[in-house]
């Protein structure tokens, strides 16, 4: 994905997230649950903040004419996905072992665990020296 496509993609994603948040918050307020709407708004500030950092970075890449990703970033992402896969297996085994205490939250916690394991793997590999 080149810088321009990446920039447009991130912009659309953030726009959808903003629209979705507004829609759900308005829905919650109309149902008389304004405190939950406020919680949702506060929670959504975090991913939108992270996205805005990426959009800003992407914009400067686009302006400077450098690619958004290259062979190193692709390698880091591939390795991170591989590590995250193995970590996720153990996360799911652990979650299934404690299945009876988690009820309906199992899927959500599992997906969250997968996301966190990928992010952590990516951060660690991105700083790794002598990456091949």
């Amino acid at each position: 994905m080149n810088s321009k496509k990446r920039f447009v993609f991130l912009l659309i994603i953030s726009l959808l997230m903003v629209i979705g948040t507004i829609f759900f918050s308005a829905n919650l307020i109309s149902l008389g649950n304004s405190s939950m709407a406020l919680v949702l708004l506060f929670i959504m500030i975090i991913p939108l903040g992270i996205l805005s950092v990426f959009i800003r970075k992407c914009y400067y890449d686009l302006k400077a004419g450098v690619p958004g990703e290259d062979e190193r970033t692709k390698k880091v992402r591939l390795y991170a996905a591989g590590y995250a896969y193995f970590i996720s297996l153990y996360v799911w085994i652990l979650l299934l072992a404690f299945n009876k205490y988690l009820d309906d939250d199992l899927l959500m916690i599992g997906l969250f665990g997968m996301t966190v394991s990928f992010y952590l793997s990516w951060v660690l590999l991105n700083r790794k020296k002598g990456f091949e």
Partner: protein
Amino acid sequence: MKTRIKELRARFDLTQEQLAKIVGVRRETIVFLEKGEYNPSLKLAAKVARVFNSTIEEIFIFEDRDLE
């Protein structure tokens, strides 16, 4: 692995960003390359060598322990 990219970049009066733009990578990759903290693909190594009118062996210096 040691590289002579920083030295050659100074000789050719190129910034990291300019070199990154020429060879089509991110500036961070050039930083890692200069520090010898990333082993580039043969294609990228050849591109860098071409920018400096040099050969891959002259820019990327491998010691015996790097090849173990």
